[in-house]
C-alpha cells in the first residue's frame, strides 16, 4: 500500500508536470492555427 501511495505521488509530480505542459502547449498551438473570422 505504502509503495503504491508513493508511486502515485512521484508519478503525479513528474508525469503530471509533463502532461500538464503538453496539454497547455497543444491548446496554445491550437489557438495559433485556428482561422481568424
Amino acid at each position: 500500500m505504502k509503495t503504491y501511495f508513493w508511486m502515485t505521488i512521484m508519478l503525479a509530480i513528474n508525469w503530471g508536470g509533463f502532461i500538464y505542459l503538453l496539454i497547455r502547449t497543444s491548446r496554445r498551438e491550437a489557438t495559433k492555427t485556428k482561422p481568424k473570422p
Partner: protein
Amino acid sequence: MSTKDQFLSRWGFLAAAIGMAIGTGNIWRFPRMAAQYGGGAFILAYTLALFLWSAPLLMSEMAIGRKTRRGPIGGFRDFLDRRCTWMGAWMATVCMLITFYYSVVTGYCLKYFVLAMQGAFKEGVDTTALWNDFLSKPFETVLFHALAIGLCGLVIYRGIQSGVEKVAKLMVPALFIFLVVAAARAVTLTGAGEGLRYLFVPDWSKLGQPATWLQAFTQSAWSTGAGWGLLLTYAIYTTKKEDISQNCLLVGFGDQSVALLAGMAIIPTIFALSPSLEQANAAMASGNTGLTFISLAQLIPKMAGGVIIAPVFFLALVFAAFTSLIAMVEVGVRSFIDAGWGRKKSAVAVVAGCFLLGLPSAFFPSFLENQDWVWGVALLLSGFFVILAVWKYGAEKVRTELINPSADIKMGRWWSFIIKFVSPVVFLVLTCWWFYRGIVDNPKNWWKPFGTFTTMTVLFQWAILLVVLLAATRLLARWVKASPPEVD
C-alpha cells in the same frame, strides 16, 4: 538561413529537444541511482535539481542560440564579446569529445538490439562471456560504431526538416511506447513490488547524506543536456516567437518522465527475476553497461514474453542513444556552417572526424571509460560558462528581453536570483565535491595524469584543452563568419 533549416513546427522542435535530453543515462543510470540513494527521496532531490540547475541553464542556452543564431563558438562570441569565444569553443569541443565515444556506445546498443532480434538471449546463456567476447573483437565494435555515426550522418546530411525533425518525430514517441510496454510487463511480474518499493518509497535518512543530493544534481545536469550546447544549437532553428520557458520545462519534465518509466521497467525486472536479493543488489551495483548488457540480457529471457520484451527494450535504448547522438553531431556541424561551410560538406567532415576519433574508444574500452570520466564532468564547467554569460549580459535582461516576451509561462525575478546566485553555488559544491571524492577515494593514485580514473587525468586533459582554446580564441573568433543569418 533557408526556411528548410528551421523546424517545421513547435512539435518537431520539442520532439528533437526531448530526444536530445533522453539518452542512455535515463535508462541505465537513473534507475541505479534512484535505488541506491533512497528511492522517492532521490526522485524529489532530482526534481528540485531540475529547477535549480537544469531548467535555468536550458533556458539560458536557448536564449543565447535564438538571439545569436550561432552554434556555441559563434554564440558566445556574439552574445558576449570576441575575447569570450574560447568559452563557446570549450562547450563545443567537450560536446564533440563526448560524441566520439558516445557513437561507440550507441554501437553497443545497436549490437545488442541485433542480438535480441536474433534470439541470442536465451535462458542459460552466459551474458558475461557474450559481452566480453563482443568487446574483445574490435572488428565488431568498429563496425557498429561506423553504423551508428554513419546513420546519424545521413540524418544530419538531410537537414533539419527532412532529417532531424522527421527522425525525432518518429523515434521519440516510439521510445515512450516501447518503455511503456517494457514497464507494463515488468510491474506485472511476480515479486515486482519489491523493486517498486526500492524505486518509489522514500528513505528520508538518505536526504541527510550529501552524496544523495550531489548524485541527484549531477544526474539531472547530465541527463537533461544542460550545459552541453545542444539546446543552444537546436534553438538556432526556431522562430523568434518560440516559447523558451515552456519548451525548456517540457524538455526537463519529459526527460524525468522517461527516467521514471525506465526505472519502472528495469528495477522490478531485476528484483523479480534475480534468484536472491543479494544478486539483485549486485546487479544494481554492476555499473551502467554491466546492468544493461549483462544482468538485464540474462534476466529478460526468464520472463514470459521475454522474446518480445528483449528487442523492444534494446530498441528503446538505441532510439534514446541515437536521438542524443544526432544532437551532439549537429553541434559540430553547426560550428562549420557558422564558418561558412555548407551543411552537406560539414556533415561529411564531422562524421568522418567522429568516426576516426572514436576509433580509440572502439578498440580500447578502457580509453572509452577514461574519456567518459574526463569529459562527463567537464560539462559542469560548460554549464558554469553559460551562467557567466548570463551574468555578463545581465540576468534580468535575459529574463525580460529574451525569455519572457514570447513566453506562455513568464519567469519571475526568482529566475534571475536562481541563475545568479543558486546555480553558481550548485556548480561550486558539485565540482569541489567531485574533486574531493576523487582524491579521498583514491589517495595513492589520484595524482597520476595517465590513470584511467584519476583526478589528475581530468585536470591534465582539461588543462591541455583550455590552453589550446585560450591560445586560439582570436583565430576562432575570426573563423566564424561575421553576419548572422536573418530569421523571422
